[in-house]
C-alpha cells in the first residue's frame, strides 16, 4: 500500500531548546546518553527513562552513522503521536568505531510507531540525511550557539 507522501519540516523538530553542544571528544555512547537525557523531558509523560534508554540502545546496534558524518539514532514508540528530536553538535567530533567516520552532528529522532506514520518517518530520515551534509555540519558545529544553529536550520 502506497502511503501519502506527507511533508515534514525540520523547523518543527529542531528548536534551540532541544539543540545541545557537546564539548571535548566524547565517545559515541556518551553522546547517545546526553541526547537521551535531553530527550526525556519531552516525552516523559509517555515513555519511561528505562524504556527510552533500552530502545535507543537496541536500535543503535544497527549503526546509523552516515558517510557524511551525520549520526541519526532513531526509535519508534507506539505511545508517541508526533516526531521528537534532539540535535547534538560536537565541534571536535568523535570517531565512530564501526565505520571510522568522524561525527560532528547527531540527532536522536523518536517517531510514532504507527503504520500510517511510517511514510512520514521515512520522509523525515531522508530529509535529515539530505540536509545534514558535511558543509552544513561544519558550519553548525562552529556556531556554538543553539539558537543560531536552530535558526540556520530553519532558514534552509
Amino acid at each position: 500500500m502506497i502511503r501519502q507522501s506527507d511533508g515534514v519540516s525540520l523547523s518543527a523538530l529542531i528548536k534551540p531548546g532541544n539543540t545541545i553542544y557537546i564539548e571535548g571528544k566524547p565517545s559515541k555512547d556518551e553522546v547517545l546518553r546526553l541526547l537521551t537525557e535531553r530527550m526525556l523531558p519531552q516525552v516523559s509523560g509517555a515513555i519511561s527513562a528505562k524504556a527510552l534508554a533500552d530502545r535507543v540502545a537496541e536500535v543503535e546496534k544497527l549503526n546509523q552513522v552516515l558517510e557524511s558524518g551525520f549520526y541519526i539514532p532513531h526509535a519508534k514508540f507506539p505511545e508517541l503521536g508526533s516526531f521528537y528530536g534532539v540535535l547534538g553538535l560536537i565541534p571536535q567530533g568523535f570517531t565512530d568505531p564501526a565505520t571510522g567516520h568522524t561525527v560532528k552532528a547527531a540527532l536522536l529522532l523518536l517517531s510514532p510507531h504507527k503504520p500510517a506514520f511510517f511514510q512520514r518517518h521515512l520522509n523525515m530520515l531522508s530529509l535529515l540525511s539530505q540536509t545534514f551534509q558535511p558543509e552544513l555540519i561544519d558550519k553548525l558545529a562552529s556556531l556554538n550557539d543553539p539558537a543560531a544553529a536552530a535558526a540556520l536550520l530553519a532558514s534552509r
Partner: protein
Amino acid sequence: MVVNPRFKQVFVLSTAMLSFISFWKAASIVLCDFGSSAYYAGGIAMNAFGPAFPWFIMGVMLFSGLMLGVYTESCLLFVRGGVYVVVREAMGKVMAKLSVSALIFDYTLTGPISSVTAGLYLGGLLENVLPLMHINWHVPARAFAVVFALLVTGYFWRENIRGVEESADNNLKIISFVTLVAVVLIGWAGLTLYHRGFTLPPFHPVFTDKALGWTVHFPWLKAVGALGIIMAFGHSILALSGLETLAQVYREIEDPKFENLKKAVITIFVFSVLFTGLLTFMSSLIIPPDLVAGKYADNLLSGLALELDGPYWARLGLQTMVVISGALMLVGAVNTSFVGSNGVLNRVADDGILHDWFRHLHKKYGTTYRIINLVAITQILIILISRGDIFLLGEAYSFGVLWSLTFDTLSMIILRFKKRDEEQEWRFPFNVKSGGVYLPIGLVAVLLVLLAATGMNMLTKKVATIGGVLFTVTFFTIFHISEKMNEKKAQLYMPDEDADEKMNLRSESDIAKVVPELTGTRRILVPVRNPNNLVHLAAVLETVDDETTDIIVLSAKIAKGIQSGAETMSDEDREVFSAVVLLAEKYGKTVKPIFVFSNDPFFSMAQVAQAAGADEIVMGVSGSTGAEVQLERLAMAWGMLKKPGEPGKPVLARVVWEGRQMTFQLS
C-alpha cells in the same frame, strides 16, 4: 539527478546484458539445423531402400511432432536443459555421460554432412551453369564438395575461435529466404503435378544389401512387414537431427516463455512437414526414379527444380535459388555444429566431467579454443575420410540422433515418476491416471518407436554402429577420466586464474558509464544478495514488461578500503549472478546485472537508483534486520545523496517477501 561527486567509491565491475529472442527467431535457429536435412535425407533414404523413401521421410517428419512434444515437456522442466541435464536428473551421471557422448557424435557429424551436401549442390549447379558461360571445366562433384566442405569448416573454425557470436537475425533471414524458395518450389511442383498427373510411390521398401547390414546374418530378421518398416524408418530418421537445438535455444526465448515455445514448436513442425516432408514427396513424384537414384541422389531438391515443367532458363534460375538457400542453411548448420558441440562440452565441463585443460581460454579472444580445435580437427578428418560420399556420412549420422532422442525420452518417463509432485505447465499427451500417478502412455509409445529404430539401426547401419560406438566410448572415457581428475583437483583446490573471464565481466570505473545503455522508459532497481532469496526479483520478472522497463539487478559487496581497484568476484558472488541469470532465463526477460563494491549496500542502491533515474527499488526482505529497517536505511542513503534543496525524482521503494510487500515513496 546529479550524483554527489564525493561518493565515487562505488564502481561497476560487471555488466552483462541478457537478451531474449522471439519465437520466430528461436524457430529459425532450430530450423537452420533441423530443416537442413531436407537437402540430403531423401537421397540417402532412396539409396538405402528405394522408391518408398518419401513415405518414410514424411513419416519421420510427422514423428518429429511427437519428439517436439517430448522436448517441450523437457524444456518446461529445465530452462537450461538438453539431453545431458535431463538424463543426469533422471538416471545419473554415468548415463548422462553416455548420452552426451552420443550427442557429440551427432553434432560432430552435422558439420561434415552439411558442408559436403552444400558442396554437392554447388557442384551440381556449376555443372549446369559453366557450359552456358562457355567454360568447359569439368567439376568432379565429390572432390569439389570435399574442398568446399574443408573451406567452410576452416572458416567457421576461425570464426568460433574468434568468438563471433551466432546471430539469430541471420538465422531468421536465411529461413525467410528458404521459405520463399520453398513456396515457389511447392507451387511450381504442384502445377507440374497438376499438368502431368502422378502415381504414388510404392510403400514397400526394397533394401540394398548394404542397407541390410548385419541383418543378412539373421535369416529370421526379414526386411518385410513391420520389421521392414522399422528398418526403413531407421534409415530415414537422420532427418530428425537438430531437434536438440530446441533445448539449447529455449533459455533464450522471450516472455511469455511457454506461449512462445508452443508457437516455435508449431512453426518448426509445420515448416518441417512442408519443407522436408512435402518437398521430398514431390521430388519422388516428379523426378524419374532412375534420376533420383543416380544424377540427383546427392542433390535431390536441385533435381526437383530442374525436372519441373517450364523453360530451362527458369528451371535453372530456380535451381540457383535452391542451391543458394541450401548452401546458406547447410553452411549455417556447420556453424551450429561448432556452437552446439562447444556449448554442450562447456556445459558438461561446468558439471566437472570434462577436464579444465579443454576449457583453457584463448589469450586474445577468450574462447574455449581447445574444444573448438578438437571439433574442427575431427570434422576435417571425417570430411577427408568420407571423400565427399554423402551416403557414407548419412550411414553414420543417425546413431547420435537416435541414441540422444532415446535417452531423452526415457529420462522424461522416469522424471514423470521422480517429479510426480511437481506442478507442470504442460505434459506430453496421453496420460492415464492410476493411483495418484499419471502413467505416461504417450511417452512410452514414443520410446518404443525409438527403441525399435535404435535397435534395428544398430544391426543395419554398420558404419554408424562401429563409428558411433567407438566415438561414444572415446568421449565417455574422456569424460570419466576428466571426472576422476577433477575430483582429485577438488581435494587440492586451487583457484582458477581464468575465473573472472569465464563470467564475461566488464569493468567500469563509474556507474554513470552504464546508464547510457539503459533504454527503457521505466527503470526498476532490484538489489540482490542471497541466491536463495530472489522472491522479489521473481515478482518483478513476473509482472514487468521488459520491452519498456529496464530491470537493473544490483549486487553490492561490502569492501573496506575500496579504492584499491584490485577486488575480484568470489564464488559466492558468482553464485548470486548465476541464480539471477537462471531466473531471468526462466521468465525470458532481460535484466541488466551490475556488481559493485561498496562500503554500504544501501548507499550503493541509492546511488545506482539515482544515477539510473530509477522509478522503483524492489528489495527482498532481510532476515537479520527486517523490512522497516531496510527502508529506513535506504531512506537515509537516498536523502544523503540528494543535493540539499533539490526536489529530485521520487522513487517507490518496495520490500517483497512471500505473499507480502511494503511499498513507500522516497522523495
